[in-house]
Structure formats: C-alpha cells, structure tokens
C-alpha cells in the first residue's frame, strides 16, 4: 500500500477523531457531546475491526502496541466522555469535547510514533488540549490557576524533552527511531551508541519530559494542585491520558535503547529505579497527610505511576506472559488504573455538598446513607485502587509485582528489581491507610451535611460501568491480559531483534 490510500486507511481512527473534534467545536452546544461520542465509537469500531496492522508510514509504525494503545484509549475514552457529559456550561461544550478528542488522538499517535519529532508532537497533542480542558472544566478561579500552573511546568518539561531529543539526533544523525533496515536511533544505540555520553544525556532529558507526563518523582509536584483545581470528572482524564501517552513513549524510547534485547544500560536502569521508588514513596506518604479527597486521589495517582514504572523497568526480559513480562503487566495495569481512577473521581463529581462539588473527606460523611449506589461504586473503585480482591486492581498488582520478581537469575538487575517489588508492596500497604479513610468517610460516619446528587444520568451510568468493569476484570482478566501480552510481544518480535543483531555484530 502506498500513497494517500495507505494514509487514509491506516490513520482512519485518528482522522475520524479529528473530524469529530472539529465537528464538535463547530456545532457546539447540546450536539457536541453526542458528536464526540459518535466519533469515538466509530474510531473504536474501526480499530477493533481492522485489528493489528503492521504498516509503516513515514514517522509512524503500526504494530501490536499501537493497536493496544489505540484500543484502550478509545475504550476508556468512551467512559471519559460519559462521565464528563454534564460538563461544562453550554457555551463551551464544543471546545470542551473537541479538546477531549484531540487529546485522545495524541495518545493514539504516540503508540505509533517512530520518529522523535512525531513522538514529541503527539505527546504535546495530548497535553496542550488538556491545559485548555482544565481551564474549561470549572468556572472556579482555581481551575484557571491550575491550568496556568500545568501549562508553564508542561512547557518547561516539553523543552527539556525536546532538548534531549536534539542530543539523540546529534549523536545518531537521524530522528527515526527504528529504521526499516535496522538503522535509526535504535540501530545506532545498539551498535555501541549507548556508551556515548551525549546519548545518555539525551535519554535522561527525554525521561525528564516523560516523567512530567507521568507525574513521576521529581516532576510530580504539580499533580495534586492541578487535580484539585480541575473539575473532578475531568481529573479522571487528566490522570489517565498523559500517563498512558508517557508510559507508551517511555516504552518506545526504552525499546530503542535496547531494553528488550539484553542491552540494558545500568545508568538508565538506576535512573528509572530511583524515579520509580521515589514516585511510589512520595505519592503514598504525602497522600497520608491530606484531608482533601481529591488531593488524596491526586497523590495516589502519583503512587500508581510508580507501580507502573516497575512494570516498565522489568520489561519483557523475563519472558512472555503478564506474570513475568513487565511491559504486558504495565499495559494491563494502566487500563485498570485508568478505569478505577476515573470511577473514583467520577464518584466525587457525582456528589455535591452545599451546591459545590464534594472535595473534602468530610463532604463524603455518610454518603452510604444518602446515596448507597454511589457509595458502593466509590468503595469498589477505592478498594481496587488499594489492590484488594475481588477487584481488578488486585490483579494489576499481581501482574506488576510478579514481573518484578520474575527476572531470570542471570539478569544483572534481578536483585534491584526484587527490592523495587518489595518497596512497591510496602507502599501498597501504606496506600491502604489513606484509601481506607475514603471508604471510612462513606460508610462509617454519620451524615454531616446532606449531599445532593450532581451531574447527570450519563455520569452515573459511566460510574456504574467503571465499578462493574473492576469486578468483571477480576473474574475474567484473560481477554485484556492476552491483549496486553500480545502488545508487548509485538515489541520483542523479529523486527526489534535487529537491534540485538547489530549489537552482536
């Protein structure tokens, strides 16, 4: 396939979303949300119907990973649209839903990026609409403040990232990540380029930019403020799409750095190890000090980035299957995380106290009495975040921690990974304490100020779906875990072995 038709068929989901976004902006008002939903459904159907294709386009390369990223972006995107249906006031609806679709498009392109420039642009395509979304989500001044804060820090780290990319271009002489003939940056790095200090500097700066997207230590400071400022339901998107894009980008960059083919660099390993351990610990410990439910969930989403980084670090080196393939474990976890986190934020958004959205822990006092269904959904999502059975969050932790313990004995990073897994387990125990406070506020206390329901039926429907998905994924994880495995296997398949081949040479 060549030429225009190749672009059109391969990029159809992204094109549909972009067209949908433009239509939503133009139509605006009541019709924006249905148009966005329709575009997402169409794109979702197209992605699933087309299955995994392995087309290469200039700067883009489609494979099992990009299929998985597309599918879960759109799948969780449907839930995101549902819970945000009631936002914002009529005047800005078009822009609001348009921006959601643009952001999703960016995530989908990230999964297929095969060029540093495309990677950078698609990551920014994820973030820039979110700056707008934060500001649009609520008439509150704090939302504007959050938006500005997010924008400045985001711009700073984007500059860091692009600076790092320039180093990589400088040493490799190309911006292409995986050349068709085993060349590109991956080929360069595998052929001894990892020893070049500029390559390491470039990678480290790129990780800084990605760490910001993940809200990972030490670039996590913005997260709780921004999450608190934005409307609850959009926070679910805020804590999911950039992280998915960031983790995908990290996986791709690490792949180019020979992560899957034995050429692991100790410097990168320890850098990411410190980031992962710090992210988990900082997120969990600081969450303990909070009294605001949204800030608790904000810090908790930092901690979850740390758990997912364990999976990225373990990588597919141990072999197949999400129990030992860290990438597959991470890909499974991110979906579970996205849904449960969205559910928890959506539940906060569905409750209002004194005419303002519920935010403080005290606002949730006795919700189980006034809104038993809402409280149950929130409890399911919170127990899932905690990682207790019978919820999918438990399986996510099973997969991620198991991958940390499963590196072969010959692997030089086995002991640090086991240590990281244990740090993760201890962190999960710390995390239980503050999640429990949310559950306790709902169930163990008496009503302080009677809560009113907020939002619309779509929000409650989306919330119910999130909670239900957590239970269903626990009983039947195989559908998703197989897909995650397949996506990760795409990374270790023949094409990527070129790197190790050239290394041997």
């Amino acid at each position, binding site marked *: 396939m060549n030429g225009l038709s190749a672009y059109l068929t391969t990029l159809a989901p992204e094109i549909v979303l972009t067209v949908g976004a433009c239509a939503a902006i133009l139509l605006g008002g009541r019709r924006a949300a249905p148009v966005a939903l329709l575009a997402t459904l169409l794109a979702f159907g197209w992605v*699933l119907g087309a*299955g*995994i*294709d*392995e087309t290469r386009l200039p700067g883009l390369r489609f494979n*099992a990973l990009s*299929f998985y990223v597309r*599918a879960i972006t759109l799948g969780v995107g449907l839930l995101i649209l549902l819970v945000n249906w009631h936002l914002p006031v009529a005047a800005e609806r078009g822009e609001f839903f348009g921006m959601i679709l643009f952001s999703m498009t960016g995530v989908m392109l990230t999964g297929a990026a095969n060029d540093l420039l495309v990677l950078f642009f698609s990551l920014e395509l994820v973030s820039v609409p979110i700056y707008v979304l934060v500001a649009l989500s609520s008439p509150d001044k704090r939302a504007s403040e959050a938006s500005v804060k997010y924008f400045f820090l985001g711009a700073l780290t984007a500059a860091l990232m692009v600076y790092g990319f320039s180093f990589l271009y400088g040493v490799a002489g190309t911006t292409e990540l995986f050349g068709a003939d085993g060349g590109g940056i991956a080929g360069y790095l595998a052929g001894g380029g990892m020893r070049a200090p500029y390559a390491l500097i470039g990678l480290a700066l790129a990780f800084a930019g990605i760490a910001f997207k993940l809200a990972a230590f030490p670039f996590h400071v913005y997260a709780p403020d921004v999450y608190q400022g934005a409307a609850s339901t959009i926070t679910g998107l805020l804590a999911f799409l950039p992280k998915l894009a960031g983790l995908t980008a990290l996986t791709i960059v690490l792949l180019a750095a020979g992560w899957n083919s034995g050429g692991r660099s100790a410097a990168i390993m320890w850098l990411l190890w410190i980031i992962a351990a710090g992210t988990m610990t900082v997120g969990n410990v600081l969450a303990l000090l909070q009294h605001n439910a949204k800030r608790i969930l904000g810090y908790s989403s930092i901690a979850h980035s740390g758990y997912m980084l364990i999976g990225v670090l373990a990588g597919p080196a141990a*072999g*197949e*299957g999400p*129990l*030992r393939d860290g990438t597959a474990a991470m890909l499974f976890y991110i979906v579970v995380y996205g849904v449960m986190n969205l559910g928890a934020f959506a539940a906060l958004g569905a409750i209002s106290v004194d005419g303002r959205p519920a935010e403080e822990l005290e606002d949730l006092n006795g919700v*189980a009495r006034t809104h038993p269904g809402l409280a149950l959904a929130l409890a399911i999502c919170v*127990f899932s975040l905690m990682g*207790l*059975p*019978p919820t999918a969050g*438990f399986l996510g*932790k*099973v997969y991620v*921690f*198991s991958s940390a*313990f*499963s590196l072969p*004995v010959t692997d030089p990073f086995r002991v640090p990974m*086991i240590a990281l*897994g*244990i740090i993760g*387990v*201890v962190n*999960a*125990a710390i995390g*239980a*304490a503050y999640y*429990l406070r949310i*559950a*306790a506020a709902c*169930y*163990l*206390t008496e009503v302080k100020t009677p809560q009113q329901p907020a939002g619309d039926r779509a929000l409650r429907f989306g919330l119910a779906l999130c909670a239900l998905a957590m239970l269903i994924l626990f*009983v039947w*994880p*195989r*559908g998703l875990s*197989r*897909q995650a*495995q*397949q996506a990760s*296997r*795409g990374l270790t*398949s023949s094409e990527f072995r070129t790197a190790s081949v050239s290394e041997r040479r």
Partner: protein
Amino acid sequence: MDAWILTITIFLPLAGAVLISLIPAERAAAIRRAALAMSALTLVAAIVAGVRYHAAQQLNPQSDYQLRAQYPWFSTGTMADTTEHDLVDTPWWAGSAITFPVDIGYKVGIDGISVWLLLLTAFLTPLAIWASFTGVNERLREYYALMLVLEAGMLGVFCALDLLLFYVFFEFTLIPLYFIIGIWGGAARRQAANKFFIFTLAGSLLTFAGVLYTAYFAFTKSGEFTLDLVKLVKLGQFGAIPFGVQWWLFLAFAAGFAIKVPLFPVHTWLPLAHTEAPTAGSVILAGVLLKLGTYGFCRISLAMLPAAAAALAPFMATLAIIGIIYGALAAWVQRDVKKLVAYSSVSHLGFCMLGLFSLKMAGVSGAVLLMVNHGLSTGALFLIVGMIYERYHTRDIHAIGGLARPMPWMAFFLVVFTLSSIGLPGLNGFVSEFLVLLGTALSGNTTDQFAAGPLGYAYVVPAAVGIILSAVYMLWMCQRVLFGPLTEPPHTPDTSRSLSPDLTRREIAILTPIALACLVIGVYPNPLLNSMNTSIAANILEPRQLHFATDESALERHTMVATDENTDRGSRSEFNPAPEAGGRKFERGARTSRLEFNSAPKGRRIVATSETRGIRSSKINPAPEGRRNGAPALEPGFPPPLRGGTPPAPPSPRAAPVATFVRPVGAVAPLFFSPAFAAIPSPEIPAPLTTDNFTASPALERTVR
C-alpha cells in the same frame, strides 16, 4: 455433585447477600429470616460436603484432597508450544494462545484438616447471625449481607487449593469485617476497624510478595507459573526449594499469618477489634478468622517449606509461649469481660502455634483440633458476653455480679464453656491441649524411639503454666460474674426487644448446639482425630518427612510414588534442572544429604540421582530387618505414609510394623484414663510400607547413582 459441592458451599452465602440486598430495607423480619435461612442452607451444603468428603476418602484413600474442582482463571487455556505467532491473523477479541504456562486458577478441594474448619465456619455463622437478631437494629440489610459475604470469604480460604485463590479469599475477608466492626461496633469502632484493617493488610501484603515469588520460583523449577498447593508441596518435599529461599518465603508468609493468628508481638490489634466488634463479629473473628492464620501456617509454611519450618520452629514456639503467658496474664487483669476473652484467645492461639511447630503428629493434630475447639468455646463465650451486655449494657466485671441467681441458664452455659476453655477432661479443650503438650514433649524426646525434634520439655513447662493461668483467670471471671452478692447496674436488666431476664429460648437454642459439640468432641474425639490425622500425615507431615529422609531407597521410592500418583491424576510434577538449584544440601545434626532431580522436558521419564553422605544419626535405631531392604526409613515415631503409589498390596509378613508414638502413650495412658488417648494410635492406618507395595511403573526409568 462432588465437583460442585464446594463451589456451591462457597457461593451460596454470596447469593444470599445479593438476595438480602434486594429485600426492601423496612422489612426487618424478612431480612433476618432470609439471612438465617441462607446461612442454614450453607450449613446444609457444608454438611453434605463433609459427608461426601468422607465417602470419597473411603473410596479413594490415596488421593490427598477430595471433592476437587477447578476452573481456569489465570490459566491460558491452551498451552500450545508455539513460538512463532501470527499476530496479524489473530482476531482481536481472542488474543493468541500465550506460550506461557500458567497454572493459577480457581481450584478447590478439601482434606481432613479443612473439612472440619469448613464445618466450623458453616456451623458458627448461622448461630452468630441468629444471635444478632436483637443486638443489631440498624442498617440490617447491609449487616446481614456483609455477614454472609464474610462467610463466603472464610469458606473460600479453607477450600482453596491454589495459593493465589487462598490469598484472594484471605484478603477478601478483611472488607466485610472492616465494615462490620466499623459500622456496628462499640464506641471506639472506627479506630478498632482501621487498626484491624491496616495491621492485617500490612502483614498480608508481605505474604503477597511471598506468593508471587513462589509462583516465579515454581516456574524456574517446573517450567510453569504454578501456585497449585499440591504441586508446591511436592516441590518442597523433593528439596527443590533451597534453604535460603525457604527461609525468606517462610518469613514472608509468617508476616501475614502471624498477624492474623495473632502471634505475640503483633497481637495488639486483636483486643481492640474484639472489644469493639458487635457480638457476631467477635464470634466470627475469634471463631474462624484467627484460624485463617494458623491454617495458613499449617497448610503452607509447614508443608511447603519443611526446612525453614524446622529451623524456625524454636523461634516460633518461643513467640507462641510468650503469647500464651502474656495473653493469660493480660486476661487476668482485665475488667472488661470481652477483653478478657479476647486475651484468652491470644493465649489459646499460642497453644495452637506451639502444637503446629512441634512438627509431630500429636502436636499438629492437637493444634488442628484446638482450632475447632477454640472456635466453639470462645465463640460461645463471646455469645454469652454479648447476651449479658444486651441486658446490662456493661461488660465491666466490677459492675455485674451474682448473676447465677437471676440467670441460671446463662450461668450453666458460662460454666460449661469456661470449663471447656480451660481444658477440663471430658470437654473438648482438654483433648486438644493435651495433644499439643504431648506433641511438644515428644518433639524433644531424644530417647530411643525418637529423633531429636525442634522443641522439648523446656517448652512444655511454660505452656503448662499457661494452662494453669487460664484456669485462674477464667474461673475468677466466672466467680465474679456468677456468684457472690447480686450486683446489677441501675435500670437493668433491660428486657425490651423481647428479652427476658434469663436467656430466651432463642438464646438457649443458639448455645445448646455448641455445648453439645463441645461435649461430643470431649468424650469421643476419635472420628475427628482419625479424619484429621489421615490428612495431616499425608499432606503435612509426610512431605516434611520425605524432605528430611536420608535413606536412598526411601527417596527413590517416594519419587516414584509421587510421580506415579501424579500421572494417575493427570497432574505431573516435573523438576527441571536449574542452574542455581541443581541439588540441595541440607545439614541437620549429623546428616548431610544431597539430592538431585532432573527430568526430561516432558515428564514420563524421571531420573532421580540421590547420593547419601555422612553418618546416620546414632540416635536413630537401626531399622528392623524388614525395612533395611528398601522400606522407607521414616523417622521413627512417625506414622507411615497413608498413600501407596500403586494399588495397596497385602503387607509382607516380614514387614516390621513402623513405629508410631503408640508406645510412650501406652505407658502414660493408664495414668490419665481418658477417651482422648484412644485417638492417638490411629487404628485405620493401612499396612506399613514394604518392598512389595511398590512396583516400578514401566513408564518410569530411573537411575540411581
């Protein structure tokens, strides 16, 4: 039927919980009746399971677990060994067959240990639910639904044959109990619930790490990620788990289990949780939930990690003894009756741990029996305390007294359960406490019949002091509450809510079955003990024994037995040579043994290389003539394995009976004539193993170097 009965038993309460949440909240009577009916139905199912278990055990005594059923959960279904994958043609919804063997799933089955705990759970829950009819008066729907959910979790723990499933149920019980304590508890309920939850979760997350590492470790040994308990125990018994790994795994598992038990330094959550929980919560917590910890030690730590359990036994037993004494002393000074009973639980569970870590038949079977007995007597004590509290609204020993006069029925039951709890001969507590002490003593007996065990008389003496202390504080409590001048707080007894000054008929009906069970177990414990001993020998002690066996022929034969059985059941254990654990070297006393297992990639052909070095301990008697020719040189004092690999052949006339601990017991028995002793020499142990019992399967090819 047999394949379904356990699943039905586990999920019936869950169905009941769903049913109850559909009843309108204002129909209180219907909710109560539905909860009672569903839990009674679960009891019926559990009884059916118990009956079917024993029937199946009669039919097929060689199988270690009965009523097994499994459903793939993590398993990948097809385990086709395809290395090249066609990613493009795979439909998106199916994924492709993962070439990654996982054997983790929903697997249930019971043996003689779990069947009694299953029955105990199913027996106590309806009584606890019935007892809450007057005590719980708000948010009824949630309360009864959570009680049933809790029951399902506990039943699941005892049925699980997969470590991950075990862990899932183990953790799952936290959620309902957290809410039961936190919503319907006493004044400090939130603090109690949070402390209970965080303490237990923190410990069990370390267990979680242990579980995951076990799966990986099994993978390096057998080529599949398995958490199948049966396979894992086989791995442990063949020495495939090196001592260092066992050590760490033991600590990881102990972190979760010890907090649940609770063992001495980590028991602090228990008195608070017990005191603040509603009556039914305390009953379930003491009656069943604490047993999840001891059950985990028994089922996982002892069987799967034999070397670490032996090495750490003195340490664990010391903690247990500190718990016994400390719990008793703390109980002595309590003013709150409920707290007193709670501390007595710490003390009793210490006995349970002591028995388990004696690593002897008598001790372990006493410990398992103690789990059941403690559930009955302490559960009943909590029920009685709850009944007093409903009438007098206080649990302060100084505020109530002389209640035997207005409440003769209550006094009767309180005395019965007190005596049962302190181990009066003729009631259930005596049998189990005696067996525990016997096992502990035997464990250190180094005279002719016995190899040195980890414990000994040094452990018996303080434990026996604990028994005396338990008599002191329990009888003191009885005396203060029941006798002396009548003391009642003002405006009591509260006889609203259809209570009468003495126990109502409902309350008598709740306590009577427990009292009967105590009496029956006290007078005639043989059926329980026989059923338990069979499984303890087969599933807990025999794997341990094989692990430590040094006799070449014993190892060789048991390799074959195990493989043979596995092939019959369709589940093979394969031991791959792994670089870092090509063999094990474990030193214990004067013995050094080295053992290697290699296997061809796909089963069938097992090459067992076994090498014996060093000197046999001179403390072990030379084997009788009949056993020297290849009968297993089991550690004397250990009952023979109950499973034969091949169909049992008539015992060879030359075969010398394998020594059991009959002899020393026989010597003391006249001193303490009690039916309990009749249980110890288990008459149903089949013919001793002889050379004739074993024929090499043609499928097996072995090389002994």
